[in-house]
């Protein structure tokens, strides 16, 4: 049974999506429970695999049993769960499960009357994201990338109005990214004759210095950067996430970009190797400069925003800079920080967008000025919001502190001081924004505890939204406290051997 677990991770949401789409025709109320059921199965399998991988190492699975015949080489598609992706698989499926429960009420009010296919698309998006994470085949990765992308265009376009144009721009950028990736795969295939990641990584060192492989690497890198909205390609993201329905943003923002970062990490660490990256002329310092620029520019723009959802989208952009920078430091603490931050940031962004969703549900507004008195109206939501912001800033017991600690350590070791400065600047900006929100939400109304001031009635979001939000916020602290266990038992083993300490 346990050898089938890897495929069950994908099958859960895939079957959920198919059944939900059929159910939407004749019994629309069924589609939500079907999707939740699929995600429960998927996240249970992913969680079990974390323990299996920690105990017994990488688990490989050949689809349909193909590829195990000797003498024929690799025929089929392989899916792999190893130390690099097992945590992300658990995070993606777990966050998707919580979000699917959380978005129910939000969808009913925000998309009233047209929510029929929402959960089918939701589940299909999760299928794509899990597929990108689990696959051991570079062409299969492209297919899953497009499954995830197509469903996310539709999820964004649910927002109507400006969302259509935002989704169209995302589609153009996303397709360009996917096409560049595919072209890069073509170069690798022409040189190595295989698409299996394990095979490619065994063949590439034997080919020596090859221009075609280098071009392929650059194309894949550019494709992944366009998909994750890294600095020069970031234009589509803020509009897409701000104009999308809050329910769509709650699933897209935490997961879509993070999974693209994972794809980049996989190509850098496994397909090519860290050795290859260090010796590729110029890219390393270019990527590090771009990461710093991404962080600085996103931080600067987030200061000028008045819309809460757009503000959060700029946070997503700056976090992308953290991860790409950490990966390109290409030393032990840098890569550890990047791999840990992919998971941590998925959780942080999820908690952030959940808290914002609760505020939107009750206040119906997302402008900063509308937050007056919100701390009295929604104390639990705002407590979760403050914890999340603390994690984003990097306050010690939360997971945000540890990833930032690893990243700064790695940058200092390489002497990349501009990256250190950008990280600190980003924390500072987030602290400023947190205090600005506290000022608006707490101080701009007469304090209700003082006699003579009007009382502010409590008006929390419904429990089905509040519990996932609070759980995510507590999860950030739990993840922070469990950092050393995660890093020692899993992430440390995902690092390539022979890496400078």
């Amino acid at each position, binding site marked *: 049974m346990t050898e089938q677990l890897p495929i069950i991770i994908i099958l859960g949401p895939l079957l959920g999506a198919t059944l939900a789409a059929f159910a939407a025709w004749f019994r629309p109320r069924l589609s939500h429970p079907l999707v939740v059921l699929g995600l429960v199965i998927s996240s249970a399998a992913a969680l079990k695999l974390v323990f299996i991988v920690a105990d017994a190492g990488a688990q490989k699975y050949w689809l349909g049993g193909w590829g195990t015949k000797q003498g024929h080489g690799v025929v089929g598609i392989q899916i792999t769960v190893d130390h690099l992706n097992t945590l992300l698989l658990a995070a993606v499926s777990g966050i998707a499960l919580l979000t699917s429960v959380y978005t129910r009420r939000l969808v009913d009010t925000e998309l009233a009357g047209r929510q029929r296919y929402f959960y089918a698309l939701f589940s299909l998006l999760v299928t794509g994201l899990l597929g990108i994470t689990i696959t051991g085949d570079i062409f299969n990765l492209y297919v899953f990338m497009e499954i995830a992308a*197509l469903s996310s265009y539709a999820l964004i*376009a649910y927002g109507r109005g*400006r969302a259509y*144009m935002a989704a*169209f721009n995302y*589609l*153009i950028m996303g*397709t360009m990214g996917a096409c560049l990736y595919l*072209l890069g795969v073509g170069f690798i*295939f022409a040189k190595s004759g295989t698409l299996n990641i394990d095979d490619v990584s065994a063949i590439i060192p034997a080919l020596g210095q090859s221009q075609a492989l280098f071009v392929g690497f650059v194309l894949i890198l550019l494709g992944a950067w366009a998909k994750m909205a890294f600095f020069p390609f970031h234009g589509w993201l803020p509009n897409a996430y701000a104009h999308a329905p809050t329910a769509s943003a709650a699933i897209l923002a935490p997961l879509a970009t993070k999974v693209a970062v994972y794809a980049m990490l996989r190509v850098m660490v496994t397909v090519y190797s860290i050795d290859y990256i260090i010796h590729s002329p110029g890219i390393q310092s270019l990527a590090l400069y771009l990461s710093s620029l991404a962080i600085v520019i996103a931080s600067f723009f987030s200061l000028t925003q008045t819309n809460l959802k757009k503000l959060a989208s700029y946070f997503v952009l700056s976090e992308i800079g953290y991860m790409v920078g950490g990966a390109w430091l290409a030393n032990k603490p840098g890569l550890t920080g990047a791999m840990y931050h992919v998971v941590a940031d998925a959780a942080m962004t999820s908690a952030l967008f959940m808290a914002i969703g609760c505020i939107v549900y009750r206040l119906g507004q997302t402008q900063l000025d509308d937050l007056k008195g919100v701390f009295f109206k929604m104390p639990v939501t705002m407590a979760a919001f403050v914890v999340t912001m603390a994690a984003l800033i990097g306050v010690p017991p939360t997971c945000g502190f540890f990833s930032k600690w690893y990243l700064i350590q790695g940058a200092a070791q390489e002497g990349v001081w501009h990256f250190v400065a950008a990280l600190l600047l980003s924390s500072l900006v987030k602290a400023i924004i947190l205090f600005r929100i506290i000022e608006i939400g707490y101080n701009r109304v007469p304090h209700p505890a003082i006699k003579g001031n009007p009382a502010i009635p409590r008006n929390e979001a419904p429990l089905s939204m509040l519990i996932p939000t609070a759980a995510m916020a507590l999860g950030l602290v739990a993840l922070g406290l469990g950092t050393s266990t995660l890093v020692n038992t899993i992430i440390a083993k995902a690092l390539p051997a022979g890496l400078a300490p």
Partner: protein
Amino acid sequence: MEKLIANFNYVIVVILMMIGLWSMLAQKNLIKKCIGMAIFQTGIILFFISIGAKDNALIPILTEAANHTYPVSDASKVANPLTQILMLTAIVVGVATLGVALALAQKIYQQHSSFDEDEILENERK
């Protein structure tokens, strides 16, 4: 120059991709962007097919499937089937993407009565 003529298919691939990329990024008309996207994808399809093609190649079908005695030494005379299969998938993906793009363009047109990006952005700012 001789190299270019011998590999003229790759030259066409590059030209196609440049046309596609240019019209995706520089054109203001949404439909022209969609067309550019399709051309870009066609370029990639041609690229993959070129990788797998060989002069005077046979179709990759096992003639004696029963006993699996396919002579390995003949692999050089058989076109690589994998690239063609990959491109079948890529064509499907491309059609789906184009469909979604056109649906979005239609929605935008219903809203703004225009396909021009500048006009739409100006409308949205109002």
